[in-house]
Structures are given as C-alpha cells and as structure tokens.
C-alpha cells in the first residue's frame, strides 16, 4: 500500500500563480522528500525535510511538515511554464526504503 498520497492528483494554474501540493502519509517517518518528474524522464530530487523540521526553503520552493497530522505541503511560488511536471513525495521510515506517493501532475498555463 502507498505510504504517501499526494493531492490533488492534477493541478492546472496560470503562470505566475503559486502552486500548492499536499502529501499525507500513514506511519512515523525519519524524513520526507519531494521529487519532480518531467514527462518520460527520471525523477529529480528537489528537497528533503527531516522529521524534526517544520519548514524548509529552496529557491521558489517551500516545504512544510506537520508530523502530528502526518502531512506535508510543497509550495512553488511565482510558477513558470517550466515547472510543468509531476511532483512526488517520498517518505523514509525506520523500516528503511523510500516509499513514493502517486504524484500530482502540475500544468502551468502561459
């Protein structure tokens, strides 16, 4: 079964707007990561947030983690056409191995 589940499954916004994607998980984790995948390509690591962190920034990306709610959000500010991709959360727990969610497909309209 999936550990991480993203929502929404698909998101379409206007260029320049902010995009927010959410991830919920079921068991305790050591860290949570967000990856990006362009169509037909491999995944690229974006950001990692540890279980004792609540917020992390990287450029236009902002990730939050709420371990009490077992959820995380990825915010992309001032979206660009090049941000069009699928975004996956992945959780790593004490049981090891990283488990990926089913992803959010983000489309940026010019």
């Amino acid at each position, binding site marked *: 079964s999936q550990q991480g589940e993203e929502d929404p499954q698909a998101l379409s916004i206007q260029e320049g707007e902010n995009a927010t994607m959410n991830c919920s998980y079921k068991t305790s984790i050591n860290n949570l990561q967000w990856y990006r995948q362009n169509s037909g390509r491999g*995944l690229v690591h974006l950001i990692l947030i540890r279980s004792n962190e609540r917020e992390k920034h990287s450029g236009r990306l902002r990730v939050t983690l709420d371990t009490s709610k077992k959820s995380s959000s990825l915010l992309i500010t001032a979206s660009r056409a090049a941000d069009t991709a699928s975004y996956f959360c992945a959780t790593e727990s004490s049981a090891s*191995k990283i488990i*990926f969610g089913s992803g959010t497909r983000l489309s940026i309209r010019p």
Partner: protein
Amino acid sequence: SQTIHQWPATLVQPVGSPLSLECTVEGTSNPNLYWYRQAAGRGLQLLFYSVGIGQISSEVPQNLSASRPQDRQFILSSKKLLLSDSGFYLCAWETGGAQETQYFGPGTRLLVL
C-alpha cells in the same frame, strides 16, 4: 561526480520474450540500488533493492528478477514477458547506508505486445 546510466531508453518486446535491462552507476562505491516500475500516470512501485553484490530484496511477487553481478551494476530480467510488464522502469541509487536522497536514471520505457 556520480552518474547513473540506464539502457535501452525504449524497448518493444513480444509477449513471452526475455528481458534484460541494465543500470550502471559511476562515481560512487557500494551504493544501494533500486528498480522501480511506473505505470502510465501513476506513482512508483518498488520492485527490487540491493545493498551489495549478490544481495537482492524483492518487494512484490512478479514475473521479474534482479541481479547485481558487480558493485555498480544492477540488472532487471525476465524469462518470459507478460503484457502487464509494460511500463516505465527506473533505476536509482543512494549512498550505501544513508537511506536518504535517491538519484534516478533516465528510465526505460517497455512496451510488451
């Protein structure tokens, strides 16, 4: 710097034929290696992972097998492909023991007809 290679990029195979997908990593030693399958528009399903030469763990029962004949080589195989084996196969590596960031190859798109 580390790089990961997968080939072929695209493969069309008939049902019942064998399969061999190869993944190699450069620039690191004793990595953890992973094979994932991604159905169209879906998330990643972990198929196999390996923490060392000859050490393979399987996550789901299936028609596929994996081998790690060398430290930085990971091979996904099948003796007889099924239609349901079609998908996008991704290989990934991470620093051995670290269990953190994974780095993915470009993937192989397999179509079984």
